[in-house]
């Protein structure tokens, strides 16, 4: 099968999966036991209040019709109206999405090169003190919940040393680059959390690559070791690592939700937590969809990149 067929197949698969994600999100919200209206109003609501809300939200309509309405809206960029703010959800999300995306991309730009470097160094010096130190620290950091890292960083750098602001009060859609200092701590914490995984994966792939017969061939051709590592081992080790980076987007996005909340950063994640607390169902649904879509697109890009890099798919 040619490369382009594979990529096309992968894109079609993503679209199909995203549709299923939308269906599942809708089902969790609307069909599972537990009435949306009750979920919104809380346990102390009276049946009359619930009934009134059901009617105003159109919950008495047949399920398929409701799904059609909602999904049609989503396709047009209309995510409904927020229950708390009384405003359309779409515009609320777009500004925040820009903020989150900027933060996420900065994190990736910091995290990926550093992690690959550290992972490769650990693999090349396998068994040395340096390797053990890198492995031990990454395993330790991997076991830390993001909020522990975030609160620790906040306590040290914002409260005790007072070097950096402890909160990033940016409004949705504001240009982040005018106040870079507010995102230093969030970027640091997210990158620390995400890097551990990429470092471990790079190390593992690199160790695999260093043990292959073609690396041995290159060495026994008389190619210097550093050149063998850079030219022969690293490019081949990048393939599996790329796929892993794609898969780690999920954890990154989860981390983003917590970090945005802690640092008061106006992103989609913070909006989602706010919608959870205020039981603002249309906003919650929209946030879940947007984040899942971002995840799918991220891993799609990583997959396509690895397909393009894969010599076995070249003709």
């Amino acid at each position, binding site marked *: 099968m040619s490369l382009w067929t594979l990529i096309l197949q992968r894109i079609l698969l993503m679209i199909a999966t995203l549709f299923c994600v939308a269906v599942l999100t809708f089902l969790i919200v609307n069909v599972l036991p537990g009435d949306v209206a009750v979920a919104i109003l809380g346990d102390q609501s009276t049946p009359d209040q619930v009934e009134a809300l059901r009617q105003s939200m159109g919950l008495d309509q047949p399920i398929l019709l409701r799904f059609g309405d909602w999904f049609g809206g989503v396709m047009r960029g209309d995510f409904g109206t927020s229950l708390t703010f009384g405003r359309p959800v779409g515009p609320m999300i777009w500004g925040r999405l820009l903020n989150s995306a900027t933060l996420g991309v900065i994190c990736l730009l910091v995290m990926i090169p550093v992690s690959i470097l550290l992972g490769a160094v650990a693999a090349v010096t396998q068994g040395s003190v340096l390797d053990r130190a890198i492995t031990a620290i990454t395993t330790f950091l991997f076991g830390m919940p993001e909020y522990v890292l975030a609160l620790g960083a906040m306590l040290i750098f914002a409260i005790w040393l007072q070097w950096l602001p402890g909160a990033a009060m940016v409004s949705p859609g504001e240009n982040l680059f005018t106040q870079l200092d507010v995102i230093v701590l969030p970027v640091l914490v997210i990158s620390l959390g995400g890097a551990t995984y990429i470092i471990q994966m790079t190390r593992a792939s690199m160790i695999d690559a260093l043990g292959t017969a073609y690396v041995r061939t290159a060495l026994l051709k008389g190619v210097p070791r550093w050149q063998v590592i850079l030219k022969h081992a690293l490019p081949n080790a990048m393939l599996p690592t790329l796929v892993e980076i794609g898969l780690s987007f999920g954890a990154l*996005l989860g981390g983003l939700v917590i970090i945005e909340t802690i640092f008061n950063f106006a992103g989609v994640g913070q909006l989602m937590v706010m919608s959870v607390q205020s039981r603002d169902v249309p906003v919650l649904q929209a946030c879940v969809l947007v984040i899942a879509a971002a995840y799918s697109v991220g891993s799609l890009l990583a997959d396509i990149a690895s397909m393009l890099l894969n010599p076995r798919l070249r003709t």
Partner: protein
Amino acid sequence: MTTLATDPQAARSSRILTYLRPAEIYVVFLLLLIAIGPYIAPYSAYDFDPASSLLKPSWAHPFGTDEFGRDVFSRILAGARPTLLPAFASAVLGIIAGTTTGLICGLMGGRTDQWIMRGMDVLLSFPALILAMLVVTMLGGSTTILVFAIALIFWPRSARLIRSAALDIGKREFIEACRARGEGMGYILFREMLPNLRSVVIVDLALRCSYAILLSASLAYLGMGAQAPTPAWGLMVKEGQQFIQFAPWLTIFPCLTVALVATGTVLLGENVRRRFAISQRLAR
């Protein structure tokens, strides 16, 4: 891609056992904490004492007290149960669902396998925390729901692992020999395959336990799952955070506890994974 050590000899090597020992001691310590934590706590975890509100750490209160005058140390001890038990329960539940699904897919193959795995892919398209938040919000914040939500997250991940391990073993010729002899499905599954998958399931369980602690701690921090006044560690961090400026001990000590327990279980999981030589890539 799978490297499954089915050689029990390797697992029994005494050198590896000594390497494992600290981790095993650690598990015993955690279990002890769950079992007797509340009973050895010097103060009540729930009773208010306005007189000793927000005290700094001292000999009387090693981790200080919170705004209601409750001893933080006692609350952390009492919090082991509400924090760890749901985590373990969800890991076990997720593994049971995942192993069953993975085995069915690995054994049946073909269309059944394809459709089930595509369904699993849909579940996998939600970042873990997001799906858990959605489910807990919509179904109510009880601990039971939390357990189910985390199990739901582990289900596809576990299924994928077990499926690939089952496919790997299913390809071996001793299973083909069973088929050629005409052995029944039950015999092949339970007598020939499952014993060979044991190590994978154990590794999966160990790793899922550590992720479950991480996930439930994160959810508790976001206000999901256990509710006040339960002394769940994540919840304590959330409640203490508002005083971070002038009473940082309310944040620091629960944070440290979560970090220690979580990294400890992650290390344990990694050790078990290495002991059974399961690929790092597969086990996530």
